[in-house]
């Protein structure tokens, strides 16, 4: 029985954060440092005919101005390489970087950037991402066929990705269904909005560059710098000081390449700090808008006999790391339900708007919001209680998924029962209040990771990990896993992390994977160290190592605790103890994909995390203003390693979900520009608006889970909130709101307008 797993521990980076002594990237300054500003595209879709930076270069205080001519002609991108650091022939959205300036002050850099002359031939902006796939539509990437990329993407002109999920014969089953419900939903795009705007500092020393940056993925940032500047990865060191949140927005390689190139040209360290407006407009990383058409056929008793869906996702201008979205969205259009026949097709289309890339559980909250409203609409058509319909149709042990993956040891239905019990489903409420319920899921992602655990001569230890702490506390919890293996306390460990020269490559803080993968590596490295300590103690105590155990800072003989040697004594004996480990990456569950296209690895869900949220809301029918009073959140995320951290993920995720549900929308004008890139008009939930949140964990031992039976925790909490709120709103106003976010105006229009 563990003494440390599942106990509340105070985070190791806590004191520096509450005293203001911790350093984030923007807090750092280097001797001789210059300041960077970008010249962004002046149009959202245009051919560049001339760039003249001579006036900018002549401005006093300017040390470097660079454009595409000053860096290697390298395209980059996740699954498709369709983007350059600096726009060359064309600009494709308002945040495309045309040039970068390094100057002695940010003000001079800004002025210089404005002095760069750029001539364009304008092209019509392609903003409607449904229309962009039409025959003859203007191409955003004319040379799309020559862009290198994953061959299974299903690319076709403005469609970057096309995925289908096919099981059985949905058409025939739909035709024979007792009840068929068909709906269309539209979700706006939205943003991750970490409170820290990003910052990057680059410094070259000889042929080697160090980049301090606010990234969630230091190793991807390193690979990006190395690729775009054509230097070996061994010459690029990425260091992440404290990271002020990410939520996906700081995933992917972003601006490290621009600033490293600028620093090399200026022969000085260069610092970039984004304004909030840039943090909205210039990052290639928003949550995607989606059009969701979904149709379900059911038999009278509620059995789901067929599901058809057509999804169109707004990719924006470039692929980034969001190439897998079409398939991920398709899986969420099936949801954690037993459905006999499925036919889902999903398009990921380019447009002349900000690129969409992973924001906390990409595609899931929007598709879940649509699907869960649709399930409630189906329940009404069947005259069933929506919770009863879900009781009948949710997956359980032995059930088969949309690609015939067979699920084992999961607690989907238990999360439903816990959530409805916590919220008091069925209670009498005033007529302007109601409770809605929604269910969802999210996979774990297996990835390679490696760690070292070095024993220090005084018996403390240092964990060296490639894991990235974005605020969740996931890295802060790694000592818990090591402590348990070594008979030490979490406080006995220091962490060396967020430095690509220190630890083996790691996926970073994305995909809720830190505990799952980096944790596995730390456990393996700790076991390696433990073995070394057992060997040493066995010699020292002259006892067979099978009779030894590591407890309370000592290696001792089982049953004879007085016969022991402390880990500190072993550590100080002159021998070096250092464990290393990686562990085997769990394999994706078996499934059947005959007839499916666009297979990118999400066709089966590894160790799925399961979610039910129930929301109690109050609707002001006169104005359409919705207040969320309470949310009950029940999750199966396997074993909970660090309760403070896990609960914090749920409360934060639910509040983000409330924002997505009610207020968070990036509004796009007819040219593809953002209309509300400020926090006054991009409305986050405030402390005054955040609901009471009650949490239930259903802990299961899912096959292929992470350390101690853990699954991911970071992303699922924002998946089902908007759907639960939507279903509650519909109960009050009697009509569904089929646009996300469900702003007061949209709720009001749904209440009093013509039904869509």
């Amino acid at each position, binding site marked *: 029985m563990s003494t440390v797993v599942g106990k509340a521990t105070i985070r190791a980076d806590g004191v520096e954060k509450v005293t203001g002594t911790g350093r984030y990237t923007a807090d750092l300054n280097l001797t001789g440092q210059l300041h960077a500003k970008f010249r962004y595209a002046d149009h959202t879709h245009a051919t560049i005919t001339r760039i003249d930076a001579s006036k900018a270069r002549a401005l006093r205080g300017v040390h470097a101005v660079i454009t595409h001519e000053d860096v290697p002609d390298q395209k980059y991108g996740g699954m498709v390489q369709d983007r350059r650091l600096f726009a060359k022939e064309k600009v494709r959205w308002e945040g495309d970087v045309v040039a970068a300036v390094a100057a002695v002050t940010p003000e001079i850099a800004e002025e210089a950037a404005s002095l760069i002359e750029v001539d364009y031939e304008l092209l019509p902006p392609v903003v409607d991402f449904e229309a962009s796939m039409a025959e003859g539509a203007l191409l955003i990437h004319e040379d799309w066929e020559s862009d290198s990329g994953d061959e299974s993407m299903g690319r076709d002109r403005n469609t970057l990705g096309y995925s289908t999920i096919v099981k059985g014969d949905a058409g025939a089953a739909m035709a024979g269904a007792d009840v068929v419900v068909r709906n269309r939903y539209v979700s706006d795009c939205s943003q991750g909005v970490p409170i820290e705007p990003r910052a990057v500092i680059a410094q070259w020393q000889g042929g080697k560059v160090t980049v301090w940056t606010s990234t969630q993925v230091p190793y991807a940032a390193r690979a990006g710098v190395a690729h775009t500047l054509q230097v070996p990865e061994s010459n690029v060191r990425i260091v992440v000081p404290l990271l002020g949140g990410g939520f996906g927005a700081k995933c992917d390689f972003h601006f490290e390449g621009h600033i490293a190139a600028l620093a090399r040209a200026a022969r000085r360290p260069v610092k970039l700090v984004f304004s909030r407006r840039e943090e909205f407009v210039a990052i290639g990383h928003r949550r995607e808008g989606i059009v969701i058409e979904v149709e379900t056929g059911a038999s009278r008793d509620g059995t789901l006999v067929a599901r058809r869906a057509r999804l169109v996702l707004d990719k924006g201008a470039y692929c980034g790391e969001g190439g897998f979205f079409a398939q991920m969205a398709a899986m969420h259009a099936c949801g954690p339900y037993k459905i006999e026949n499925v036919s889902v097709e999903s398009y990921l289309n380019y447009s002349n708007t900000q690129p969409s890339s992973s924001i906390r559980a990409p595609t899931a909250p929007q598709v879940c919001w649509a699907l869960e409203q649709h399930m409630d609409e189906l329940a009404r058509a069947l005259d069933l209680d929506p919770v009863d319909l879900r009781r009948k149709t949710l997956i359980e042990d032995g059930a088969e998924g949309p690609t015939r993956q067979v699920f084992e040891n999961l607690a989907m239905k238990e999360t439903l029962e816990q959530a409805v019990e916590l919220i008091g489903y069925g209670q009498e409420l005033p007529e302007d209040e109601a409770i809605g319920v929604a269910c969802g899921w999210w996979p774990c992602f297996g990835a390679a990771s490696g760690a070292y655990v070095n024993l220090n001569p005084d018996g403390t230890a240092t964990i060296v990990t490639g894991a990235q702490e974005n605020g969740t506390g996931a890295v802060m919890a790694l000592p818990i896993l090591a402590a348990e293996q070594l008979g030490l306390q979490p406080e006995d460990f220091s962490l060396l992390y967020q430095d690509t020269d220190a630890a083996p490559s790691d996926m970073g803080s994305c995909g809720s994977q830190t505990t799952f993968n980096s944790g596995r590596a730390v456990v393996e490295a700790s076991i390696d160290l433990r073995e070394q300590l057992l060997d040493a103690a066995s010699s020292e105590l002259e006892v067979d190592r099978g009779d030894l155990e590591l407890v309370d800072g000592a290696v001792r003989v089982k049953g004879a605790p007085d016969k022991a040697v402390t880990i500190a004594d072993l550590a100080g004996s002159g021998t070096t103890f250092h464990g290393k480990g990686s562990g085997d990456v769990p394999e994706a569950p078996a499934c059947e994909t005959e007839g499916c296209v666009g297979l990118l690895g999400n066709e089966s869900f590894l160790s799925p995390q399961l979610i039910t949220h129930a929301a109690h809301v109050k609707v002001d029918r006169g*104005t359409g*203003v919705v207040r969320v009073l309470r949310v009950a959140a029940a999750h199966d995320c396997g074993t909970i390693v660090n309760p403070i951290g896990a609960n914090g993920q749920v409360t934060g995720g639910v509040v983000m979900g409330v924002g997505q549900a009610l207020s968070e929308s990036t509004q796009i004008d007819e040219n593809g520009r953002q209309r509300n890139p400020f926090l006054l*008009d991009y409305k986050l939930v*405030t402390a005054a608006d955040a609901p009471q949140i009650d949490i239930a964990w259903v802990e299961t031992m899912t096959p292929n889970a992470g350390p101690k039976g853990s699954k991911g925790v970071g992303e699922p909490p924002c998946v089902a909130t908007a759907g639960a709120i939507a279903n509650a709103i519909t109960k009050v106003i009697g009509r569904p709101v089929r646009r996300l976010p469900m*702003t*007061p105006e949209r709720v*009001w229009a749904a209440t009093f307008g013509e039904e869509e």
Partner: protein
Amino acid sequence: MARQYFEPGTVDEALSVLAEHPGADLVAGGTDLVVGARQGKRPLGDTLVAIHRIGDLSDLSETDGGGLRIGALVSHAELESSPLIRERWSALSDGSILVGSPATRNAGTLGGNVANASPAMDTGSPLLVFDASVELTSTDGKRSVPLSEFFQGPGKTTRGPSELVTAVDVPPRPVGSVGSAYVRLEYRLAMEIAVVGAAALLALDGGGRVVEGRVALTSVAPVCLRVPEAERLLAGADATEETFAAAAAAAGLAAKPIDDVRASAEYRRAMVSVIARRALERAHERAREAA
């Protein structure tokens, strides 16, 4: 660009600086001026006159006749916490509480808020239903301008380039049982900007009839404005739900809202009636409590 900075300690000093530097940017709490500059709305001017240390602009008191004088440097926080304002000038209290966060209300002043002339200002329609005027002072003397004439458009007022807003004066309340209220359409419960706001004042006679009713609107026209069409329906009418509904509907027709990032004109117009009615009902409750 080199900037000049002045920090007068008295009104007279401030007026001489303004006489020498007409059009200088006046700054007290910075919550409109500096925020606007940071957002890129309008850069700070070359001459900054900080008036926060002028002691005699911080007076908040009832006048002999039962009116109110609010020094230009009185903060929203002071208005919010004043029992006098809460009890007798409730709509202004309602509006002050809704401004920004505690930090905004602590730094932001009424004088600055009025001079900034945002159509979305939450104290604008409350002051309008109290028939407030702005005291403008320059080296040439003082003049008083009714608020309804002071506001000319978004960010535009009749303040001259060498004039300082020194106070907001409010005449005595109408005779009768008086209640007032300001209600805002609130997407969120904090950090909101008015999308639609309405202030109402009702003076009732002993029989519960409306002797005088006043309605003003925030954020549905280029300036905060009074709605005479609604007020005519209130004067002399019985204080009933029907009366309030009719007046609120008239307010909806009088509004000249626009489509913007915060709402469509259609929604705003519809909300004017809803919010104005709620303001009237709350003012009515307060008037009855006062009776």
